[in-house]
């Protein structure tokens, strides 16, 4: 069975500071990993994904994530946070060869960026 953990329910950072939203996963074989963002009263929006290749993945809005196989992690990062980054962030994992709908989503981390 696959699983994903987002150990922090809430992350608070000051505007301009770097931010990290943590994600660890468990899956058989090599994973597909995703980050999605949900703004208040909106649907989830795709940020980035790791499929294969370079462990550092760059995505939308200046976000990036690093796939670390030995630590089974896929932390989301941004060098300089904006107030507008405040939202709910979901990490998701899929086992290769399964259905996209079988992705497992984490419980979400609420990011608050203060001016």
């Amino acid at each position, binding site marked *: 069975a696959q699983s994903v953990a987002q150990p922090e329910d809430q992350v608070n950072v000051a505007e301009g500071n770097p931010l990290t939203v943590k994600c660890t996963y468990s899956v058989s074989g090599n994973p597909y990993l995703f980050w999605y963002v949900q703004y208040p009263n*909106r649907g989830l929006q795709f940020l980035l994904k790791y499929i294969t290749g370079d462990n550092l993945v760059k995505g939308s809005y200046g976000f990036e994530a690093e796939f670390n196989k030995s630590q089974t992690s896929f932390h989301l990062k941004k060098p300089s946070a904006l107030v507008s980054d405040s939202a709910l962030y979901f990490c998701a994992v899929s086992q290769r060869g399964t259905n*996209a709908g*079988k992705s497992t989503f984490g419980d979400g981390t609420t990011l608050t960026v203060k001016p």
Partner: protein
Amino acid sequence: DTAVSQTPKYLVTQMGNDKSIKCEQNLGHDTMYWYKQDSKKFLKIMFSYNNKELIINETVPNRFSPKSPDKAHLNLHINSLELGDSAVYFCASSQDAGTGNTIYFGEGSWLTVV
């Protein structure tokens, strides 16, 4: 142009009623989904259709019945609504059912059962 659109956005109804949520995607995708997000924001897959064929049917009460008239549309009908059905329901789509595909979500339908 909205890629995945669902209606209604808000729905308040009484227990025991039957209601439907409609979804359409204009991305040309083969696969569509229904997800449920509860009050704690946890997200769970309910159903998935690939080219009108049901391919995922998670543990969902049979009061919930999805229907896909064509691959661009996936509707969700709920019979005999219960208080516990109150949630946000997201329609979504992906290019196909392959694992690495990005899932594109609609804006959600906020269902409140009173």
